[in-house]
């Protein structure tokens, strides 16, 4: 490979910065929507696995095993093809197909809920049972106790697990490539599939990998800060 060609490949990537930036926006949007869905469903799921009983607990457990035991690519294509998601068209500017975005959010979000549920379950179980009893002993209902005593402590203890989950979801948004969602990796492919640009494959992939890395790295550092900030003074957790 001649140096001139190499330079022009890098220039090609740079000249398409806007195209990749929009892909980054889609990647971030998908990460945020999936994590939010995962959090909203994950905490109740974890709480049910600890405090629930009977069929509800068993159902949550079974759904969790299914979601955690299936590859994410299978979940994404299955949700994309099987669910009757209406064709909502495409979001302008970022060129994002809404039905693909919804399918990917559901797949990544529900699976994340299954994992976050495990994290929360562990956190709740690590909180001394005395905390629940103390809350009940001043007359709080079980729900009040979970909301005011267990939840705030469990969320803090879950932060490391949540941080981990963030990295995994962010990286796995790339699997939405399978349903053609215009996120970072899909856009990378579109770039080097342009006629005569097959020499730029490695440059394009290095650049998008760097973007993923910067996103995971900076967010992890930010979450580290958050963790220190909201740590309970004197507590070791």
């Amino acid at each position, binding site marked *: 490979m001649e140096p001139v060609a190499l330079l022009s490949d890098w220039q090609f990537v740079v000249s398409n910065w806007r195209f990749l930036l929009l892909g980054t926006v889609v990647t971030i949007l998908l990460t945020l929507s999936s994590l939010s869905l995962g959090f909203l469903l994950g905490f109740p799921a974890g709480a049910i696995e600890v405090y629930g009983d009977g069929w509800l607990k068993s159902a949550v457990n079974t759904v969790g*095993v*299914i979601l*955690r*035991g*299936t*590859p*994410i*690519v*299978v*979940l994404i*294509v*299955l949700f994309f*093809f*099987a669910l009757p998601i209406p064709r909502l068209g495409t979001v302008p500017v970022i060129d994002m197909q809404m039905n693909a975005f919804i399918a990917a959010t559901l797949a990544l979000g529900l699976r994340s809920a299954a*994992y976050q549920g*495990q*994290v929360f379950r*562990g956190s709740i179980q690590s909180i001394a049972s005395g905390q629940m009893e103390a809350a009940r002993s001043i007359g709080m209902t079980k729900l009040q106790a979970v909301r005011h005593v267990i939840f705030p402590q469990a969320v803090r203890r879950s932060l*490391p*697990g949540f*941080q*981990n*989950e963030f*990295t*995994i979801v962010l*990286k*796995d*948004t*790339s*699997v939405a*490539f*399978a349903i053609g969602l215009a996120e970072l*990796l899909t856009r*990378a*492919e579109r770039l*080097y599939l342009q006629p005569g640009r097959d020499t730029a*494959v*490695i440059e394009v*992939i*290095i650049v*998008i*990998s760097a973007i*993923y*890395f910067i996103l*995971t*790295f900076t967010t992890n550092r930010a979450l580290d800060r958050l*963790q220190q900030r909201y740590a309970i003074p004197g507590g070791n957790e």
Partner: protein
Amino acid sequence: MTEAAETRGSAVGRVGGRKRQVFLAVGGLFWTWLLARWAYHNTLLDGLLTAVGLPDVLRSDLGVSQREPWLPADWFAGVAANLATDAGGVSVLVVDPLVWLFELAALAAESEPALAAGAFLTVYLTVLSMFFGLFIAVPAAVTRIYGGPISSRISLAYTELIRGTPLLAQLFFFYFGLPLAGFISGFRVMEVSGMPRAAAVVAIVAFTINSSAYQAEYIRAALQSVDPGQLTAARSVGLSRLQGIRHVVLPQGLRYAIPGWTNEFVYLLKYSSLAAFITVPELFRRARNIGSDTFQFTDIYLIVGLLYLALVITTAMLMNRLERRVTIPGVGMPAGRD
């Protein structure tokens, strides 16, 4: 605190009671089918049987598309078609799901030989990559903890870069970016029958590197949980630093790494599905191809999802068993040491 951040919860967890019985029964059936299929089309076994005078017992000569289903696919399809045309006044609410179930069974029976071949590659990729990954992971973890300022940083950079980028991007990098496939095809070894195609080798390279970074993190955390006094004690009996690590720290630390390691195994089993996007005909790729041929995407993805679940759950149960086997009372459970 950071140690918890390196791990991901296990997919399945411990299964008990009646659920366990059901899993064992279904899992047993599933593996009987898989192993029978694998053996039935295995070149080596066939050669062996031919050599002892049984030439036509196994059929390793058949290409994947020529293999006959073991279940009556046509019969299932016939029942579905009959039900659909002649409901006989029964409510659609009952008939429609029944028709669908028989169609699903027909598709499953039809695709079974191809899916079994795909599952073989899935397991093959996973086992080899985990195995090779271990040989990078152990030195990487040891360097990270005991190495000098430069070597430990290199090890850190390696694991962080790999773990900070998506696996799919890594697969693309090795397959489309580096001319690795062409390079591999150039070797004479690749012409020997039974060797995987070049794309599969690229997948193994990528998975090995990827899993080595995750395995290294588990092993690092495990080594750090070994009492530092152990290495001091090793030095005090005259062992060199490397000998101390090799004979005292590693044998203890690797035991602590087993739960994380088995977790990573199950994780890779699932993520090996991404090799489909670099043309490796593993389980997911097979399903995708069947989908393109039949347009029954939902059905085939449902079937392949169930197969993955069976693979993952049985593997996880096996791993749990392995974990219990290798634990020595008082060792291998960091929490129980104080």
